[in-house]
């Protein structure tokens, strides 16, 4: 077999590549720094392969178009940054309630509000979980290399289709604007999941049926399977309901279709944890800093390891607790005022001392900062 071509690729364009590989054929968005190259890439590539790119009037329209395209049967994506995500949250909630698969990429910059357009941040981590109002379970993935950005975007589409739910890909300014040498996956090399469609006659179709795995087959709008799509709480037939005995099962469906299958969703990178007495927990671009610091500290004889959260939501409660059960200390490094550290505190046994390393000045954490923190807590 011929050797695979090595290409230098920008993070944002790796996201586009992954999305197209996964079968995305619809993109609607409103360009915003530091995500703009995703819109540019989709505008360039989608028309060539029979897809559609629309620049909408704003982010509200963008996510609305994405939800509509998905209901009509296409794999659909939008990309934005924090300010745009804030505008999208109402319709992201609509996608959760209507169980519409879609992928939302947030290339994070500093906030709140318009904040720091060109500076890195991880301060939308909680927004990815709790952006829209109401109860639901969210899926969020966060790559840390350009190669990962391709594969995690593919995984985001697969999870969206598998669970009929919006999935957020959390990038950040460093990830979006970094270039790295990668080899692109060949067609067929990475599994691509397709939406399960109904096989019953249309008149027997139950649009929100509580199937054994709680994911209902989804027809394309216009295929003859008529149903109502509404953000109001609905019963299995899709009709608005106020009945307590219908409301609870609907909300349980939104949660349990994901929570019951967490093992399929959780993905971690675990390095040097076998004998680690202290561990770094990180995600996104900061994981690169963490693995660098671990590499340096290990050479100095410090028993330190690291866990990277590729899946941030649902949070890997059980997995993290098991991995860190032999550690005395855990340092959570993130580019915000401390968001994931509280999740780590929630899941780890009380005898593990947990330390928070935060940076929120628009710059990425450096290996030296992690090593200094390590020295401080040792």
């Amino acid at each position, binding site marked *: 077999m011929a050797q695979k071509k090595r290409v230098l690729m920008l993070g944002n364009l790796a996201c586009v590549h992954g999305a197209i590989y996964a079968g995305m054929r619809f993109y609607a968005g409103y360009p915003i720094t530091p995500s703009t190259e995703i819109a540019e890439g989709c505008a360039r590539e989608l028309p060539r392969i029979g897809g559609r790119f629309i620049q909408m009037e704003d982010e509200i329209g963008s996510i609305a178009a994405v939800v509509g395209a998905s209901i009509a049967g296409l794999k659909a994506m939008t990309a934005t940054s924090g300010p745009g995500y804030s505008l999208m949250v109402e319709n992201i909630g609509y996608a959760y309630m209507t169980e519409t698969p879609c992928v939302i990429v947030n290339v994070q910059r500093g906030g709140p509000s318009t904040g720091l357009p*060109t500076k890195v941040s991880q301060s939308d981590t909680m927004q990815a979980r709790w952006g829209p109002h109401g109860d639901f379970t969210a899926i969020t993935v966060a790559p840390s290399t350009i190669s990962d950005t391709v594969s995690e975007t593919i995984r985001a589409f697969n999870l969206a289709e598998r669970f009929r739910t919006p999935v957020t890909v959390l990038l950040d300014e*460093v990830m979006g604007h970094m270039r*790295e040498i990668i080899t692109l996956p060949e067609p067929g090399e990475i599994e691509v999941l397709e939406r399960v469609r109904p096989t019953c006659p249309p008149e027997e179709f139950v649009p929100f049926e509580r199937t054994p795995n709680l994911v209902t087959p989804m027809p394309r709008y216009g295929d003859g399977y008529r149903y109502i799509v509404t953000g109001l709480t609905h019963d299995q037939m899709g009709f608005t309901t106020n009945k307590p005995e219908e409301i609870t099962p609907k909300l349980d469906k939104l949660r349990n279709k994901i929570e019951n299958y967490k093992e399929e969703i959780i993905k971690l990178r675990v390095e040097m944890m076998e004998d680690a007495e202290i561990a770094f927990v990180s995600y996104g671009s900061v994981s690169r800093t963490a693995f660098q610091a671990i590499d340096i500290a290990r050479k100095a004889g*410090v028993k330190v390891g690291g866990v990277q959260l590729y899946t941030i939501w649902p949070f890997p409660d059980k997995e993290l607790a098991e991995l860190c059960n032999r550690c005395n200390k855990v340092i959570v490094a993130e580019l915000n005022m401390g968001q994931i550290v509280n999740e780590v505190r929630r899941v780890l046994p009380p005898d593990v001392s947990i330390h928070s390393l935060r940076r929120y000045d628009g710059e990425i954490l*450096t290996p030296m900062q992690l090593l200094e923190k390590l020295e401080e807590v040792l």
Partner: protein
Amino acid sequence: MANERINKIEVPEDRFEMRLSGSGGQGMILGAVIMAEAIGSTGEKNTVQTQSYGPEARGGASKADVVVSSNEIFYPKAMKFDLLLAMTQEALDAYYPDLKENGILIVDDTLVTKVPTDKHYGLPFTQLAREEAGHVMVANVIALAAIAELTGIVSREALTETVLGRAPRGTEEKNKKALEIGFREAAKLKK
């Protein structure tokens, strides 16, 4: 005890870190992209390229990093430079302190007047671009050729292929000329 050991740790030896610096508009980011692509796509080594991304498109300080390694590259930015290219005095003053003790310093003689060490290579990139290559805009390409020649980090052929692959149509000859000038002038310095 462990603490003292951590303090003594140097940047891992498997990394070769380059910083290309100058002012906005001098093509430092494009230069770093070309370098990362030329080294990474033709060889076995991994490369990562980053920049300070900001509104300094024209005039302000501009820097871009390339990290090269045979192993997985973790931290994507340069920490202590094995090579520093400074196209302006301001850039040299800002980044010289982070050049490794045996790091290679290359400056643009046209614009840099005060160099804090004798151990450096100086070439008038801007002047050569303007007077010999025919356009000031290719000063960065002359500098890339000089880096290739002085470090051997990338072959002449690989750099040429990458530069021409990225050159806008109609600028191939100017870029070819710029590469030749860079290789030639840097070869003289090596003697």
